[in-house]
């Protein structure tokens, strides 16, 4: 079973990898976006870790709801409401249980990904974070490691795609050949999950 501490480790591990990869995320965002993805997410996840330390939420749902709220209020770019909605909706779906099973997490996370698709209007193949998150959700029933691999492969597979959503869609065909920064950071989020599980 997964308790609040597991979910805190997930957020902390993600914050650390976003820190580590911030320059790369911003570099990916330079040719097709507005070159702020790494710094925006770094600011967001730094605030998430600080809020978790300060408020010490007691349940898995409360950890993710607080984290999502922090991302919405601190990121300043589109990734804020998107990741914020992902975590908050997942947290709400987990309810107020003290512990949840991996299956419950997989189900709740699917609700979160669905909410992101509704909010942003993106579908698989649009060269967005959805291209990493949907394969990850599908593999989450197997193991966290399988989800990590699926997310990383999904992110890499955005390279030949033409962007159809967001700022990158304005550059049209020139978005082809660049790995999507949002899909890349989504893979970091899923890797954080595997890391929290010690996988």
């Amino acid at each position, binding site marked *: 079973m997964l308790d609040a501490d597991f979910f805190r480790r997930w957020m902390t591990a993600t914050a650390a990898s976003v820190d580590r990869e911030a320059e790369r995320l911003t570099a990916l965002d330079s040719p097709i976006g507005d070159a*702020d993805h790494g710094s*925006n997410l770094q600011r967001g996840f730094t605030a998430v870790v600080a809020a978790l330390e300060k408020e010490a939420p007691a349940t898995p749902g409360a950890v993710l709801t607080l984290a999502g*709220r922090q991302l*919405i*209020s601190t990121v*300043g*770019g*589109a*990734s*804020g*409401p*998107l990741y*914020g*909605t992902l975590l*908050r909706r997942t947290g709400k779906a987990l309810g107020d249980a003290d512990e949840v099973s991996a299956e419950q997490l997989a189900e709740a996370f699917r609700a979160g990904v669905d*909410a992101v698709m509704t*909010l*942003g209007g993106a579908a698989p193949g649009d060269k967005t974070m959805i291209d990493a998150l949907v394969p990850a959700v599908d593999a989450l029933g197997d193991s966290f490691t399988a989800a990590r691999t699926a997310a990383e492969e999904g992110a890499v597979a955005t390279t030949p795609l033409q962007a159809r959503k*967001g*700022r990158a869609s304005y550059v049209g065909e020139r978005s082809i050949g660049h790995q999507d920064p949002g899909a890349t950071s989504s893979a970091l989020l899923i890797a954080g999950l595997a890391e929290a599980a010690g996988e």
Partner: protein
Amino acid sequence: MSDEQLVGIVLVSHSAQVAASVAELAKGLAGGGPAVPVAPAGGTEGGGLGTSSELIAAAAASVDRGAGVAVLTDLGSAVLTVKALLAEGDELPERTRLVDAPFVEGAVAAVVTASTGADLAAVEAAATEAYTYRKV
């Protein structure tokens, strides 16, 4: 007509200057009618380009007179942040609505319409109708 009955307007842009200027423009074009509560929510709290949920929530609270609040946005994170806040349910005043409208023309239409004492649905309809205004 008392100020209490007017719909409030919030203008959300990635740029503080754009939000403030469009607010000024719309209020100016509304002329001498009752002063519509209009608040810009532009840029990040640090003054950079982007979207701040805090500035949006504060702007919405400042223009809420009980008749509803119409929020107009430019694009991208401005749209997504307002939608995420509306989904949250408790960060924006009751009867706050994201209005699907062009930013400048929609703001003028919304503020002028609100100045007549029109309700939220009428303000929203006027702002959305601005999409149909062809220039050529």
